[in-house]
């Protein structure tokens, strides 16, 4: 990178705000999606919104592309620097600015870790509802970029339902506020369109987040089934009975075994599937719902239905679930997780298709997913040192997503398109749909300097990933 440009960046953020050494910046070569890697030419870590704005303004002037990054826990390569020399990290924007319990909101910088927000208001009986599985490490800014979900979104919604307003540094360096700290702000819902834009509309530096009262009581069930079929029938039965569970999560044999090995929760490793069912709300409402749920499970031949005895057991159960992806590390050196969505009633169909794909490509695929939302997470295991297997994983992943689309679903429920699923966008969007997205991006990001080569495939030149671009930092 040009020394003059480096010097200017040093001027703006100071020496501790620039990572230029080769081995040092190599650690920024990918996020949780490891199939593709690219080392940024420089990483900038600003200490304030103003520094972010100054950096961006300068890059805009020089027409240098850049990519924002939070904690790098994303699963679709959203912060992979593809033809973007500069990476701007939000890790230093890690302050909770303001807590307003009476008005039930928190103002936090975008580098604040998701779980820190809930921890800050826990004692007072509040929570920040979106709880992606990576919540112990992922940042609010990343959650906003991806419109992150989590196991409890069935009842509580996703990130966009819990954000009141954003402070954004636009790709020209201008700082704007979209939305606010009150609920109804006149004008177009720019906050709504910025959330989930995967960092292509600018860099979010601060957000006003809604707080939710912690439920008075929880009840968490672990229902064990002989087959995935019975478990999915149970899911439909619960939904049809008029109950909106806080969470409805399913895990198949392979993932149960991995989790059991990692956390020793006491999952039956010979079960065909388990469901984690959680209801919450007023204590008075739990008994009648429990009766219904137990009856439905029984009706669908549940082998057993366990209820978490206390908060510690409930937390242990959720810990097992939330760390399921990582637990795969015990079964396989690498994994790639897919994030398709199907209408809830099509869950059995998609699982059947996944089994077929697994056989066809001779890959081990574990399933852990948000059954209540129809949001599947097949985990494809591979070893990146085996080039052929790696290629098969890419193909199999695509085939699974195609199947989701066939069944009336979508390519991604919460992980985002990133670089991973860009080439499949035409499966669900027409050229006109993609055109309007390109135009919307131009409204915010006219020169496409901010996180280029993401989400929208370049017309005519779809990058078709069949082999990883780069394996290891060289």
């Amino acid at each position, binding site marked *: 990178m040009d020394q003059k440009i480096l010097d200017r960046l040093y001027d703006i953020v100071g020496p501790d705000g620039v990572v230029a050494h080769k081995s040092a910046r190599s650690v920024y070569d990918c996020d949780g999606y490891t199939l593709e890697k690219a080392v940024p030419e420089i990483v900038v870590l600003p200490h304030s919104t103003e520094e972010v704005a100054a950096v961006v303004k300068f890059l805009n002037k020089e027409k240098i592309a850049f990519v924002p990054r939070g904690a790098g826990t994303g699963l679709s390569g959203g912060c992979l620097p593809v033809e973007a020399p500069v990476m701007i990290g939000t890790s230093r924007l890690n302050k909770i600015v303001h807590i307003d319990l009476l008005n039930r909101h928190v103002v936090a910088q975008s580098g604040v870790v998701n779980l820190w927000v809930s921890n800050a208001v826990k004692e007072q009986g509040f929570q920040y509802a979106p709880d992606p599985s990576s919540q112990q490490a992922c940042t609010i800014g990343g959650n906003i970029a991806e419109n992150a979900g989590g196991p409890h979104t069935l009842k509580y919604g996703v990130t966009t339902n819990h954000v009141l307003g954003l402070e954004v540094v636009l790709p020209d360096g201008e700082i704007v506020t979209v939305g606010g700290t009150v609920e109804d702000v006149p004008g177009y819902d720019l906050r709504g369109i910025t959330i989930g834009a995967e960092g292509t509309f600018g860099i979010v530096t601060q957000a006003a987040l809604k707080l939710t009262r912690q439920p008075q009581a929880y009840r968490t069930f672990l229902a064990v089934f002989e087959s995935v079929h019975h478990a999915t029938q149970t899911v439909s039965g619960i939904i049809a009975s008029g109950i909106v569970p806080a969470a409805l999560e399913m895990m198949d044999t392979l993932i149960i075994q991995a989790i059991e090995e990692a956390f020793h929760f006491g999952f039956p490793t010979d079960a065909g599937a388990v469901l984690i069912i959680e209801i919450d709300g007023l204590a008075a409402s739990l008994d009648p719902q429990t009766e219904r749920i137990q009856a439905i499970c029984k009706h669908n031949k549940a082998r057993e239905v366990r209820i978490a005895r206390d908060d510690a057991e409930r937390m242990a159960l959720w810990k097992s679930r939330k760390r399921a992806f*990582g637990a795969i590390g015990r079964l396989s050196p690498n994994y790639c997780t897919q994030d398709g969505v199907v209408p809830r009633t099509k869950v059995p169909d998609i699982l059947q298709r996944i089994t077929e794909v697994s056989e066809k490509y001779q890959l081990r695929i574990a399933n852990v997913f948000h059954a209540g939302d129809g949001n599947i997470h097949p985990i494809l295991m591979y070893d990146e040192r085996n080039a052929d297997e790696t290629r098969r994983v890419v193909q199999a992943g695509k085939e699974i997503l195609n199947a989701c689309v066939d069944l009336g679903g979508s390519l991604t429920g919460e992980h985002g398109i990133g670089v991973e699923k860009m080439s499949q966008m035409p499966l669900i969007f027409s050229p006109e749909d993609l055109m309007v997205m390109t135009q919307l991006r131009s409204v915010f990001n006219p020169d496409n300097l901010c996180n280029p080569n993401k989400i929208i495939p370049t017309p005519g030149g779809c990058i078709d990933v069949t082999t990883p671009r780069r394996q290891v930092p060289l």
Partner: protein
Amino acid sequence: MENTSFVDHEKFFDCVHCGLCLASCPTYVELGTEMDSPRGRIVMLRALQEGHAQLDDEVVGHLDLCLGCRACETACPSGVQYGALIEGARPFIEEHYRRPMLERGKRWLMNKTFPNPWGARLFALFLKVGAALGLARFARSEAIPTTLRYWFGLLPERGSVSSASLLEHYPAIGEKRHTVAVLSGCVMSTVFGATNLSTVKVLRHNGCEVLIPKAQSCCGALLLHNGEKQTALALAKRNIDVFDQLDLDALIINAAGCGAMMKEYGELFKDDPAYRDKAARLTEKMKDVAEFVGSLELRPPTREVRAKATYHDACHLAHGQGVREQPRALLRAIPGLELTNLPESDWCCGSAGTYNLTQPEMAARLLERKVGNIQATEADVVVTGNPGCLMQIRAGLRQSGLPITALHTIDLLAEAYADDPGTD
């Protein structure tokens, strides 16, 4: 490519790059740099091993800054043995990388001090003399260099240093339930002698016959942290020889740092036919004192201790040995004691073996954070299970002028048992 392998390569593949460890890492949260996170360090270690990265100031700087607190292992869902990776790299770094002179001198001094009984006595003498001269008060003086100021700050206060000569054998009080040995430890025996006596007292009150063989040596942890693997192994062998010949139910360790290291003897000698079995056998018996006493049916302590206490999880106890609940349960068993929750209780205090000596700046940042959290609890006593933490936290409390005492778990528990004229 030269052979740069320093650790079992397969261990790198346990890491799936999910990043869940990031926010558990004190240096990452303080600095916000991925190179100072467990995931980043693993990437660098792998690049080193594969020959893609040079062992230069930048890389070594980030690896050196690792506290070795292993909070990341607790956070990791994939079971990455981060400790093994970083400890494996330390000797490699010492062998292939030349540090600046001052840094080399510092490390040499430490490596010579801790494993050697004379060195340890020398160290104790330094601490005692320092304490007697009241050097700690210079910790806030602008007239001396920052590093020195920080080191002086760590010195214990007059009167708080105790060495105790221990007997080799103590009978159980009441009905005998177990035979145990105690690791006296080099820092423990010279600076925290009273804690060793407390350990003996609590064990005896709970029906244990206690053996403390004189021939035992330093556990080797500090050496290993500083990359002196061969010396560390020699010390470990000596301990294995000494303790393995006794007929023990448990080997009790009251310094979390020593415990975490010794519990790895089995792993360390797994390829050594002469020591493999002995090491594995002994490792099975190693128990932190709180872990062991907590597993007994506790003979209820009777003396009231009226205080509000809060518990700090020593890294090498919570993350290194998974001992979290037992010390808290013991504290709850003390009549009159109120136990309050410490925010970020399992966040490293910055002591981390000799870290506060080699990385004073980061250590001071973490200490400030820890003291702030302790202060917020409004407790009178902060309790923990590691001598390094105690020295560090005491220094922090003193510098902030807070009237809060820092005690070892077992000291507080011993308070609650009646004095036994036979041992004191």
